């Protein structure tokens, strides 16, 4: 189950910085292509046994868990039904389940990790350090667990056809009127990556994009050494609905831009998608970093290729609200004196001929105030939504359940 060093027979691990397989025992390094082809043919899995069989359970208590034996130390390796590489908890050596990436199941391409574990952790720490509202405890938090996982993706070519009706406001002289617009058309999508794992939410994995597809390599299991990986476990129905959702977002975005209106809102939609059956299977890298804060697990995702950090961090509410209220009071006092002396002038003008102009000024002021509040609140809601995604239990379990 492991790729061994030609010089000392110790297990090799892929190093993102040198992009080579490195032996921690004798220091030798090899490219994936250099590892002898013939040795790969003889690497076979020891027969895996279901945990239900081992523990004599008939009710499927240990459903989808399999026991393998570590090639290095003979220790027990427990993995679930979709994992394809892991690390032995006893000797720390990488193990790849070759039968899960064999023949038809073998990915076409792999994007090797470019970001090392240390770099990923330091990137996260740097980000946290810069945050004004990141609580002090989080800035100095102990990171529980760091896992480098190759996520399975299907690269999809698809045809999308859509028709939408949207409403939007158009300025007509002094007034704003709401109109309805219809747009219909097609999109041809090329190599859209769709997350092929049921265990991580599509919302989280889509935020890891973009991956630099130009740096994809032909799949070689040696790239998996030292990292965890999963194989595809989604159905055609899952694939179609994920692709449809993404294509619909692109189409609606273009339709909105095409209409040139304010406050656009999609009111009717008729989307349809046709997937090309010729799919490309690729493994793309991501770091999962978890920490515990106030009893909740938070999982930060990092694109293992570009280093894009994806997370929402709980904020220091006392600092945030005290600053907000403080600045609010200060600006209110300043604005009060400004309005106290300007409003009588505006109202006096209202009684004279230029009344419509002063009315307009007040209307603009009211609209401006509403816009400030809604934009501010919308941003806070966005942060809260992102925090919830970081606290997602499924993502945490996806990472935590791996041994190592």
């Amino acid at each position, binding site marked *: 189950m492991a790729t061994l060093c030609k010089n000392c027979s110790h297990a090799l691990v892929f190093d993102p910085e040198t992009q080579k397989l490195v032996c921690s025992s004798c220091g030798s390094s090899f490219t994936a292509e250099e590892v002898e082809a013939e040795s790969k043919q003889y690497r076979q899995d020891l027969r895996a046994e279901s945990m239900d069989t081992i523990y004599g359970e008939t009710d499927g208590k240990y459903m989808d868990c399999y026991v393998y034996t570590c090639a290095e130390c003979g220790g027990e390796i427990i993995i679930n039904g979709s994992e394809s590489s892991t690390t032995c908890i006893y000797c720390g050596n990488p193990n790849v389940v070759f039968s899960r990436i064999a023949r038809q*199941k073998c990915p076409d391409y792999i994007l090797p990790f470019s970001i090392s574990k240390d770099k990923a952790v330091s990137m996260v720490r740097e980000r946290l350090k810069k*945050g004004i509202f990141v609580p002090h405890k989080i800035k100095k938090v102990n990171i529980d667990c760091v896992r480098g996982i190759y996520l399975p993706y299907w690269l999809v070519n698809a045809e999308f056809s*859509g*028709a939408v009706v949207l409403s939007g406001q158009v300025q007509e002289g002094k007034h704003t009127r709401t109109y309805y617009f219809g747009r219909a058309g097609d999109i041809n999508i090329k190599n859209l990556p769709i997350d092929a794992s049921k265990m991580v939410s599509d919302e989280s994995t889509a935020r890891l994009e973009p991956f630099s597809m130009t740096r994809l390599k032909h799949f070689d299991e040696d790239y998996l050494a030292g990292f965890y990986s999963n194989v595809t476990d989604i159905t*055609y129905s899952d694939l179609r609905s994920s692709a449809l959702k993404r294509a619909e977002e692109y189409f609606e975005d273009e339709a909105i831009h095409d209409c040139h209106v304010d406050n656009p809102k999609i009111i009717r939609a008729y989307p*349809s998608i046709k997937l090309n059956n010729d799919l490309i299977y690729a493994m793309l890298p991501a770091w999962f970093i978890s920490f515990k804060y106030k009893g909740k697990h938070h999982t930060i995702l990092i694109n293992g290729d570009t280093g894009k950090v994806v997370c929402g961090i709980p904020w220091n509410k006392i600092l945030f609200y005290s600053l907000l209220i403080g*600045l609010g009071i200060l600006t209110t006092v300043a604005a*009060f004196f400004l309005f106290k002396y300007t409003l009588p002038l505006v109202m006096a003008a209202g009684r004279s001929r230029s009344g419509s102009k002063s009315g307009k000024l007040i209307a603009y002021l009211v609209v401006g*105030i509403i*816009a400030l509040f809604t934009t501010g609140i919308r941003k806070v809601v966005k942060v809260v939504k992102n925090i919830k995604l970081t606290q997602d239990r499924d993502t945490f379990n996806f990472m935590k359940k791996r041994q190592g």
Partner: protein
Amino acid sequence: MGIYIIDLIALLFAIGVGFGLSCWIFGTLLEKSNSFGDNKGDKRYYKAYAKFSARKDGINNTECNNFCYSYGKNISKDSDGPADSEPVRKLTDEELAFYNHTSVEEAAKKHEERIKDLEESFNLWESRNAKGSLSGVFSKLDEEELNSMNRKKYR
């Protein structure tokens, strides 16, 4: 009395402007401080540009109801492939030929073209990287992508 009403109105506006401005400033700061990577893959990476076949502006209520049915096409019914409940897998050339109603040779040729199409970008990247002309991780934008971005910029 009149003075008091003006003061009251001034106070209401001042509270609105003061707390509205504060809400906007701190909402923006919070977003920058505590939320990272809140965007998905842009359409230009997947060449997902819409080609509109029908545009109708200022339509009325009845047309609103009919527009989607008149112009929407259900193309998913034309697609042939493995059953929805089946796990996604790589199809063999024979299966691709069967589902796409072509010959095995044709299916194999199309598959090769699909791979070649993807790999051409690898080669382009490698050659530009070797020449040291790579400005970033991603390949240079083509004319269409640039136009699309500029449209967005000046809108």
